[in-house]
């Protein structure tokens, strides 16, 4: 009986985690992959792996970072698999995504196009900061790089966005 209750409790906690963090994991995966279908696959794989290693999650406050780490690995795995079937997933997505074909104007499609065009090394910390609300120190921990490196990447990301969206001149870093 105790074991059954324990399993139910574990499942309930996992359900709660899925409900609370699915949007974050999906958006994270989307901006890594720049492709909705790949993002959905990453989300599914992430939650499957998370369920299998759920006991290793010590504190629920660490759940989001834990899931994003799993999602990053799953994206890498999936990307490697899909690269075998496609020439260049990034280029194909950029070329075929209808959001990128939208007419110019002051709307989100322009911003999304500019974000998609950012190199991943700039896009990922920017997403963690702007969307997930992480501090530069937390981002450094997530990505396994120094905080100074994070600051530089974020600065360069915004410089590229200024150039792309506001027509600003590129500044020296």
């Amino acid at each position: 009986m105790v074991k059954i209750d324990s399993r139910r409790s574990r499942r309930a906690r996992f359900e709660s985690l899925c409900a609370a963090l699915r949007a974050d994991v999906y958006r994270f995966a989307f901006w890594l992959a720049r492709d909705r279908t790949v993002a959905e696959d990453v989300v599914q794989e992430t939650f499957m792996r998370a369920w299998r290693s759920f006991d290793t999650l010590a504190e629920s406050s660490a759940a989001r970072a834990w899931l994003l780490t799993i999602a990053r690995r799953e994206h890498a795995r999936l990307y490697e698999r899909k690269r075998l079937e496609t020439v260049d997933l990034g280029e194909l997505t950029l070329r075929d995504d209808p959001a990128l074909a939208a007419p110019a104007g002051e709307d989100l499609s322009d911003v999304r196009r500019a974000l998609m065009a950012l190199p991943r090394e700039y896009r990922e910390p920017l997403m963690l900061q702007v969307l997930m609300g992480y501090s530069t120190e937390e981002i450094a921990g997530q990505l396994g790089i120094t905080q100074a490196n994070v600051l530089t990447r974020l600065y360069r990301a915004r410089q590229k966005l200024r150039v792309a969206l506001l027509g600003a001149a590129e500044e020296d870093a």
Partner: protein
Amino acid sequence: MNCAEFRHQVGAAPLELTAEQDAHRAECPACAAYAAELLALEPRLRAALAVAVPPAAPVRRRDFSLPVGIAAAALLAATLAAILFGIYPRPSLAAAVTEHAQHEPDEWRARDPVSQEALDAVLARSGVALAPGAPTVTYAQSCWFRGRYVPHLVVQTERGPVMVMVLAHEHVARATPFAEQGFQGLLVPAPKGALALLTPDGADVAAVAAAVTERVRYLN
């Protein structure tokens, strides 16, 4: 603090100005304008990054490793499917189509024709093809919808864009117009399953339904 240092730090974290940065901003109009520019960009970045999240799909699994075993894998998949479906109850078909359209607002803005290769790939994923002569397709995605990947297209008409979803696994007894959330829609029986059509601008969805019905081919 000089201007270069200020710009580097503000460019990295425009919402986290220190007292020193604030002081520099107060005495340097050029840097103040720079900071204002970045601050104004932040809400747009946040909104653009917050892409719509599709409803949860049931878990598909390919490589369950032993010794978990088939029974345990099936149980786990069923559990997760129940979790994810339980969170998102199944709506009516018309409501689900409308909700899906609202997740992808960019579809209505696309104007350039989708390449034939991209369109064919989206259709083939669901075992469907379109014979030549269909209206110009300006948006084509393979979308997870009520348990299946389905083609989600937008075609252009003289009276505006029309969304078309090819739903080979849905059943519609008869042509059923509907209005949801400011959209006008139509569900129609197709040679296999159904088509769902939606317009925000009062376009002739029945004409598009007829054109697509005539040209849709089911490969399986």
